[in-house]
């Protein structure tokens, strides 16, 4: 230590020298100071391995600033190098400084050296002190540090693994996690875990693996919390000792003696076994008034205090040994106290009474209370009670509940049942009542008794029913006929082991009326049920009854009801049985001394749904050019809501287009207009407030309006008819010209001899026997022949019209031909008859030969019968093929051939087998061309040359006809018809 020397005896005249000396002295001092900056000596080290703290002390005189350097010895890595200010410790006289290592101090050897600093000047470094680690060659086994560390949640901890000599390091795992490591020395490896989370109850393992991934060494770290108690209070139960209570607000996660929590209560230390219950308690024998709780673990401590007088902290114990004395409507509950001191303690006691799941509390007070009376109990009811008490003065808290005690109140006679009557349209019905609840039965039920009696008569009928019965069917027909009263009283009583209830009665009128005088209103369902309102009824003296049932039910319905006090004019009906989409009927009855009177009716739905089925019987009908849709109703059960109307859709593909909305739910039809021809599909959907149903669909093909077609046809026919009339009229007016032009007079034949005859037609009357006129056709088979048979007796009938025919057929250029039809039936003309004679011929029931004239010009005609038709039983057929038969067109009569053996007059059959048709020749050439080979026949044939009145029915067509011939035939027929017409118009 440099010191300054001052000589006080120096002379004043030597002041300059003195000043110089001072300056030199100061300079010398400064120079000496640099020279004497103390090198720290006697550096010593001490360690706290748990806290990883290194304490360094040294001697360095008065120096206060030092440079400290700490290196890892083996790798010469600097761990710490800083300038620190260190004062001399008054106790030891040494400089002392503490350093906390991040790594455990055992991990590797550390070298420590110090130098003094004065400004920028430093002393020499001290001797290096080495803190030997556990990785020295002398400690050759596997090691790991730190061991069994307890750290708080969120801490950072560095672990190191020292590898066994000659072995290879693998990895360090923290739990399941492989950690990054740093090498501290030849054998030491370290890893740091940051922000550690809670460990398991047995800690988290930090495991060192060798290069073969085998577990070789490890450490356990416990991560938890410091204690955190709260709500510390002390109270007394026995009025002498204290019980102190507190809560552990947080689980420390640290257990067992070494890591667990320690407690100290008023300087008395204790441990508590682990429990899930966060509330802890400790009993102290005497009340001390002031309390201090200290809670400590390895991570921290917490202190709580409490102070109170004993009388302010009384928490009574639970009452013991509960007993009871039960009656029908009250019960006495008694109990005992564990401590005698309670006999003088003013108490509040709370009795919790539980019945049918409902709890009620009754509070009582008294000194040393140990019995209470519970009023207002239900008879025959199961109760359970428990009791707790608190100090009446300076009430602190309720004590614990006693154990639960159960009892049953006594029985009495039951309540009168709630009854009602459902009557059908006849005298049948049912008396119904609501089964008494356990509370209403007030005892063990034994049954019900139902009585029907007529007040004015002595008629009475009683029935006893089991206890589970709630309805009995009744038939009042007999009583109605036997009694003169207008009503019957139905009475129901309930019976239990204690007796019979008061009777419940309803008067039933015996004069039933079908009329339902009351209009039905709509009931609306709300959250509280169906809200029903009505006008007050002065006659209602007893009550109102609202009855409801499913509307679709008509007979012995499961009806429900509720009674309403007479002063009320509204009620909300709620029932668990209400179903969505079901219509309910509600009926309000007035109850008085008379029979119930129906006052009002409602209908309503709890919830309206869309109809469950569409309209029935949807039909489509075409009316003119419109389409009429008609449908039936939806059954009530399917409506599921009040119908508001119908929507009419037309469907095009899969899309429905709304045509109309019918807001009248009574609508049953709709006419669709303005549609063109085509196919249409219509859908009708009924809707309620909930929406539409799925709809009924019907299709229709709209066709043209046929009435117009018919009108058009009729108009055409009318025009045609008018035209014909006009033509006929003109022909009539010009008939002479027409006759001259188309029917000139046939020149009178010029015959040799006396063959002259009159111009009048020759009326040929055949002989009595049938006359057969055969006309042979050369190219035909000889077996085929034309047969003409006219019985004699018919000739008179036929001959009447012949004369007229002959008048018309005298035209030389217009010839008439007749076919013949043989039929056993009356022959009906296929074409308009040409004369009256032909009509008369048709009426003959006998075998006839008739002719129908076919007019043509300048041609010969063939009169032919269908051989097939002729040969089959000789049954003439009105067959068109027969009528149109014939082959090859007209056949001149001269070409025909008639077999002679089939023409005998005795032949009964006018159409011999295989008879061929023969031609017919106009009367102008008849004689010349007739090839008759029979003399008799020839003589007769000669008489046939004259025109003959013959009934005409059909045209005779030749075999093998073709279309051309047929057309010609028809035109010939038309001409014949026109000829006949003109003939008939002759005056």
């Amino acid at each position, binding site marked *: 230590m440099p010191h300054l020397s001052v000589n006080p005896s120096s002379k004043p005249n030597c002041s300059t020298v003195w000043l110089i000396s001072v300056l030199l002295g100061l300079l010398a001092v400064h120079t000496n100071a640099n020279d004497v900056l103390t090198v720290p000596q006697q550096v010593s080290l001490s360690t706290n391995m748990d806290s990883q703290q290194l304490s360094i002390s040294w001697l360095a005189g008065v120096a206060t600033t030092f440079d400290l350097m700490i290196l890892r010895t083996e790798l010469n890595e600097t761990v710490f190098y800083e300038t620190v200010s260190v004062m001399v410790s008054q106790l030891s006289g040494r400089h002392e400084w503490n350093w906390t290592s991040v790594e455990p101090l055992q991990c590797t050897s550390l070298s420590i050296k110090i130098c003094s600093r004065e400004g920028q000047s430093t002393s020499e470094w001290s001797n290096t002190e080495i803190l030997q680690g556990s990785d020295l060659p002398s400690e050759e086994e596997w090691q790991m540090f730190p061991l069994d560390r307890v750290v708080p949640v969120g801490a950072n901890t560095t672990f190191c693994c020292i590898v066994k000599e000659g072995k290879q390091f693998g990895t360090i795992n923290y739990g399941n996690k492989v950690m990054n490591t740093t090498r501290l020395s030849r054998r030491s490896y370290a890893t740091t875990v940051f922000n550690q989370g809670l460990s398991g109850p047995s800690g988290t*393992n930090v*495991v060192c693996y060798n290069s073969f991934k*085998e577990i070789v060494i*490890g*450490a356990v770290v416990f991560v938890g919390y410091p204690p955190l108690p709260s709500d510390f209070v002390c109270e007394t139960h026995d009025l002498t000792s204290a019980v102190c209570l507190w809560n552990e607000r947080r689980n420390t996660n640290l257990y*067992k003696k070494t890591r667990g929590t320690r407690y100290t209560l008023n300087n008395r230390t204790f441990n508590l076994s*682990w429990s899930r219950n966060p509330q802890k308690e400790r009993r102290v024998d005497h009340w001390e008034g002031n309390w201090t709780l200290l809670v400590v673990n390895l991570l921290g401590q917490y202190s709580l205090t409490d102070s109170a007088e004993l009388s302010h902290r009384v928490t009574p114990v639970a009452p013991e040994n509960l007993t009871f004395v039960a009656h029908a409507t009250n019960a006495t509950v008694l109990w005992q106290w564990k401590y005698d001191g309670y006999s003088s303690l003013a108490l509040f006691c709370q009795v919790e009474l539980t019945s049918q799941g409902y709890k009620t509390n009754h509070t009582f007070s008294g000194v040393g209370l140990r019995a209470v009376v519970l009023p207002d109990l239900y008879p025959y009811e199961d109760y359970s009670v428990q009791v707790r008490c608190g100090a009446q003065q300076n009430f602190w808290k309720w004590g614990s509940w006693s154990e639960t005690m159960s009892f049953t109140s006594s029985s009495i006679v039951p309540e009168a049942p709630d009854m009602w009557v459902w009557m059908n349209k006849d005298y049948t019905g049912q008396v119904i009542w609501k089964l008494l609840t356990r509370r209403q039965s007030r005892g063990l039920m034994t049954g019900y008794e139902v009585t029907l009696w007529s007040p004015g008569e002595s008629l009475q009928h009683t029935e006893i029913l089991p206890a589970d019965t709630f309805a009995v069917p009744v038939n009042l027909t007999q009583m109605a006929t036997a009694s003169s009263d207008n009503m019957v009283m139905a009475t129901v009583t309930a019976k239990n082991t204690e007796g019979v209830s008061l009777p419940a009665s309803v008067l039933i009128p015996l004069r039933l009326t079908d009329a339902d005088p009351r209009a039905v209103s709509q009931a609306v369902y709300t959250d509280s049920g169906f809200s029903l309102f009505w006008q007050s009824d002065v006659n209602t003296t007893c009550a109102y009854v609202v009855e409801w049932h499913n509307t679709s039910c008509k007979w012995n319905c499961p009806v429900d009801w509720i009674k309403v006090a007479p002063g009320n004019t509204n009620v909300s009906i709620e029932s668990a049985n209400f179903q969505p989409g079901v219509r309910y009927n509600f009926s309000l009855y007035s109850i008085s001394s008379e029979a119930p009177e129906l006052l009002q009716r409602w209908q309503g739905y709890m919830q309206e749904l869309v109809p469950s089925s569409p309209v029935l019987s949807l039909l489509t009908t075409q009316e003119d050019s419109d389409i009429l849709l008609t449908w039936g109703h939806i059954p009530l059960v399917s409506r599921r809501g009040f119908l508001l109307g119908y929507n009419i859709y037309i469907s095009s593909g899969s899309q429905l287009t709304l045509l109309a909305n019918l807001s009248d739910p009574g609508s049953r039809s709709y006419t669709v207009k303005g549609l063109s021809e085509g196919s249409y599909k219509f859908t009708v959907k009924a809707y309620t407030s909930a929406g539409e149903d799925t709809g009924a669909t019907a299709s229709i093909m709209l066709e043209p309006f046929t009435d117009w077609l018919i009108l058009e046809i009729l108009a055409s026919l009318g025009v045609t008819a008018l035209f014909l009339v006009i033509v006929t009229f003109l022909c009539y007016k010009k008939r002479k010209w027409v006759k001259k032009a188309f029917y000139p007079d046939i020149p009178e034949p010029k015959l040799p001899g006396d063959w002259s005859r009159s111009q009048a037609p020759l009326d040929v009357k055949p002989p009595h026997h049938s006359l057969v006129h055969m006309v042979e056709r050369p190219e035909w088979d000889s077996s085929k022949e034309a047969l003409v048979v006219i019985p004699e007796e018919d000739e008179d009938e036929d001959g009447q019209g012949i004369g007229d025919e002959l008048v018309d057929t005298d035209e030389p250029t217009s010839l008439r031909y007749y076919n013949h039809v043989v039929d056993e039936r009356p022959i009906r003309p296929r074409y308009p008859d040409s004369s009256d004679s032909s009509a008369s011929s048709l009426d003959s029931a006998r075998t006839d030969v008739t002719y129908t004239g076919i007019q043509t010009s300048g041609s010969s005609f063939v009169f032919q019968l269908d051989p097939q038709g002729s040969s089959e039983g000789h049954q003439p057929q009105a067959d068109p093929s027969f009528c149109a038969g014939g082959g090859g067109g007209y056949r001149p009569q001269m070409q025909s051939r008639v077999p002679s053996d089939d023409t005998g007059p005795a032949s009964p059959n006018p159409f011999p087998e295989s008879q061929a048709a023969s031609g017919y020749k106009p009367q102008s050439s008849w004689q010349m061309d007739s090839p008759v080979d029979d003399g008799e026949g020839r003589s007769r044939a000669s008489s046939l040359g004259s025109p003959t009145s013959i009934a005409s029915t059909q045209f005779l067509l030749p075999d093998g006809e073709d279309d051309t011939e047929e057309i010609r035939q028809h035109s010939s027929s038309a001409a014949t018809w026109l000829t006949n017409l003109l003939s008939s118009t002759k005056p």
Partner: protein
Amino acid sequence: MAARRTRGMTGPDVNRSTVARAASIAEQLRYECSILLELYREKESFTADVLVDGRLVSVAPPSSQLDTRDKLWRLHSALMQCRSLLERAIAREEEELGGGKKGEYETQRKRVKDRLSYLLICTGELLKTAGGAALLTPSLEGLELDGPTALFELKLWVYRIFKEVDYWTITTLEALPSVIAKERVRTSRGRTTRSTRR
């Protein structure tokens, strides 16, 4: 000696049934041991096997020269050591590492201990049948029951004990059939010898 042992038998059927019961218990114990080891590995995050130096249970080395009684004795002794070690391990574990609520691991651990006791009763009966009651109490001297103090080493020690129980259970299971076979041969030889002497 053989004759004495033969006289000690209550009959081949009874013996076989005892062996069968022992085998059944050993089979169940082996299954429960495997579950216990799995639970422990899961609980302690032991993803790899432990580097084990030596065995905890010390018995005479196996030899084909050993007769039935000695084989039974060896098995019974090993199992007794296992039970002692297991009981100690459970106690140490509870003392040092327990806490909190008990779970499946603790239940399985107790189950293995109880099953091991049942197996010991069976092997004891077999041993009694084979050699008499005087030989039924193997000594536990020299058995290291304290275990290490460091917690991680304690965990490894517990694990090794579980492995020992597993090992000796399997050994017992494998040895029991041969015990029966030898006993049958020995019994039949004894009978043959006696009948020949007659």
